[in-house]
């Protein structure tokens, strides 16, 4: 796991939580939307909080797809649930809302679950080989491989 991949997982967590919060904040400002007045749903998109929330959810989706391209689904999904923990912590420390003991227990369970998965390998499925095969068929950069350099150095020595 590289630092960049940890950043992608952090993006999955943060973008989902921030996107949901902003959508919720924006929809509270626009008021309730009824099925008989669907044009009010279009008006809701013009609210800056709703628009920003949608943008952040797009960013979440991009990070989620990125993570799924190199990690198992059962590895990535716990990272998405860390967003719930983040929201509860923001509610407690930034919004000064009351967080019940049951919710603290929920936070502890999710954190425990994520730490269980984070200690293991990111990719275990058989698709690992097929992904490598696909990459092997792709155009190579103009840099000689380690084997080619090694073979050349042997040739020079001989």
């Amino acid at each position, binding site marked *: 796991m590289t630092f960049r991949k940890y950043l992608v997982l952090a993006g999955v967590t943060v973008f989902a939580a921030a996107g949901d919060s902003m959508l919720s904040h924006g929809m509270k400002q626009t008021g309730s939307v009824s099925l008989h007045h669907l044009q009010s749903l279009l008006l809701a998109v013009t609210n800056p909080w709703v628009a920003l929330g949608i943008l952040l959810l797009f960013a979440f989706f991009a990070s989620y797809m*990125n993570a*799924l391209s190199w990690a*198992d689904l059962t590895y990535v999904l716990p990272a998405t*649930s860390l967003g719930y923990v983040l929201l509860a912590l923001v509610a407690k420390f930034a919004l000064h809302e009351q967080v019940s003991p049951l919710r603290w227990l929920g*936070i502890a369970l999710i954190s425990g679950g*994520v730490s269980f998965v984070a200690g293991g390998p990111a990719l275990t499925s058989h698709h690992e080989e*097929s992904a490598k095969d696909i990459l092997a068929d792709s*155009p190579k950069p103009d840099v000689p491989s380690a084997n080619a350099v090694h073979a050349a150095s042997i040739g020079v020595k001989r």
Partner: protein
Amino acid sequence: MRHIYTWGGILVVVIFSVIGDILMARAMKQVGDVHEWFRRSGLWTVVGRILSNSNFFLAVCAMALAFFSLLFSLSWGDVSLVAPAAASLTFIGNACAAKIFLHEKVDRRRWIAAILVAGGVALLAG
């Protein structure tokens, strides 16, 4: 009767969510490591590979159906039941489906994690 509708709705949400996640995971594995593709061939190759994958579109359709099923379920049952139940059962369903359809090695560590996270989500959202 309303109870049956609510739990039926939750079941439909879970089924479509799991199908969406599994198809999306399969699509992205078929696309390959996007970091590697981006480094070698640039952004448009990555976008092209994703948009030319049929599983990606099926996954988006399943996720959209899950979203609309959730809206219907919320009209039949309380949000404090529907949201945590659907989220928790989706975690467990995904662990089972990933083992069966994606051949992921869901060992004891990942089962415990799925159960802990499902329980935690139920407590947080409940």
